[in-house]
């Protein structure tokens, strides 16, 4: 059967990732010793990648405003553009765009760093020294990205809404006041569980889950890397590809879970 081998490899990969996630969560008690590593990974991944998220978020907000605004203008409904941009950014575009950027930056660097350790015997050295690689390598990366993803998503949402406002004012002739009022009103829809607007917390929840997926896929690709520089390249490519696929699939199911009713 031509599909048997890839299917077995896929199942092995998912099994390894589930075990990795479970093992890492079981080691959360070790987190107080890892804050320095978490801070370093946060700085390298999130702070140094901040400008990318801000730039892309700004233009995504502008694109959403322009694309939908032109159509709304035809039917004289351009005053609702603030509502559409705010909901689009908070529910969908903010978490998705932010986490896609994180998959390409933090996820790829996790796979490359750990993969390089795997092919240069550093992981074997950790094993020989009885050093727990989940505590040392995976736990700080998982925690760092789970902190980074929602924070960057808030920034992406905010700058996207600002960008949309700029387009609404300059090209659709909607006043800033009207735009901001409709955006705030749209996000004011109270949640059933949390005292936060549902669209905002659902987006942040999504980005937290996407962060977990990126860390688990990035670290597992690195840990399973073999075959020198080519193997590291393969692991990095696989980490970014699989993270983006996982983000999209998880996005559908989380949206279904949160908005189905």
């Amino acid at each position: 059967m031509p599909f048997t081998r890839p299917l077995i490899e896929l199942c092995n990969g998912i099994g390894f990732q589930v075990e990795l996630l479970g093992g890492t969560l079981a080691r959360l008690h070790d987190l107080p010793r890892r804050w320095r590593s978490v801070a370093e990974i946060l700085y390298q991944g999130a702070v140094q990648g901040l400008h990318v998220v801000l730039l892309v978020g700004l233009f995504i907000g502008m694109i959403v405003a322009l694309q939908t605004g032109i159509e709304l203008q035809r039917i004289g409904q351009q005053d609702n553009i603030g509502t559409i941009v705010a909901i689009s950014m908070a529910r969908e575009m903010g978490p998705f765009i932010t986490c896609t950027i994180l998959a390409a930056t933090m996820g790829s660097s996790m796979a490359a760093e750990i993969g390089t350790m795997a092919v240069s015997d550093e992981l074997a050295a950790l094993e020989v020294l009885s050093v727990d690689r989940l505590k040392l390598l995976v736990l700080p990366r998982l925690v760092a990205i789970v902190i980074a993803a929602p924070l960057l998503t808030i920034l992406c949402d905010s700058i996207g809404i600002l960008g949309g406002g700029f387009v609404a004012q300059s090209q659709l002739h909607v006043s800033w006041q009207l735009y901001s009022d409709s955006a705030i009103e749209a996000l004011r829809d109270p949640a059933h569980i949390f005292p936060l607007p549902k669209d905002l917390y659902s987006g942040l929840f999504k980005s937290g889950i996407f962060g977990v997926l990126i860390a688990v896929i990035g670290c597992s690709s690195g840990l399973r890397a073999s075959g020198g520089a080519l193997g590291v390249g393969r692991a990095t490519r696989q980490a970014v590809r699989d993270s983006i696929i996982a983000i999209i699939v998880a996005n559908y199911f989380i949206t279904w879970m949160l908005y189905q009713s």
Partner: protein
Amino acid sequence: MSPAEDEPATVIRFRDVHKSFGAQKVLQGLSFEVQRGECLAIMGPSGTGKSVVLRHVIGLMRADSGSVEVEGQEVSRLTRQELSALRRRMGFLFQEGALINWLSVGDNVALPLRENTRMPESEIREKVQEKLALVRIPDAWEKMPSQISGGMKKRVGLARALITDPEIVLYDEPNAGLDPEISLSINELLRDVQRELHVTAVVVEHRVRCIKTVADRVLFLEQGRALLDLPPKDFFASDHPRLRQFLGVDPD
């Protein structure tokens, strides 16, 4: 009775060990023993499974068949905790040092103590400094692996292998990639470690000078089996045709 008298004389025992990677048969019925306090050198052509032997001893690989015993325990049957406990009694010097590239020299050496013990930081620093002095790089703490030479990486790797005061030390080609002068100093260092710490050691090496300096016995591997097992003096005096052919092309 001293602890040494409690423990069996044979520290490492291979019995009819076979190991293949796909179609490639690497070990084909290898058997040998290493006695307590002895330094065994394993020599042989590339691809005969010398490094594979070391990886079986430390539990990084499992034999397809046969048995590998360390301190009377069958390595492949140990639980993760038991293997971890056994590994704490062993040190391993990797071919390229295998230093963690984002940690400084001192932090690399301190890593096993920081991760696996509750030792106070002041004690850890003192012990690391002692091991760095033992391998003759007392001022290297702050240097990063990318800033140091190949020979220095070996010394740091050795300091890290010795930080837990192991009873067994495994050296994987300690002279690989080093010039003759640095090789000589590494060989002398291994000999001094052997004399001062009285460890049981296995050295995978194909440089004659290293073996003459550190080994008590030499095992010659050929096609995954032990072809010769002799003291260095008899080994290098042997007129075995395969050995003479091999040594005839040895870089030393």
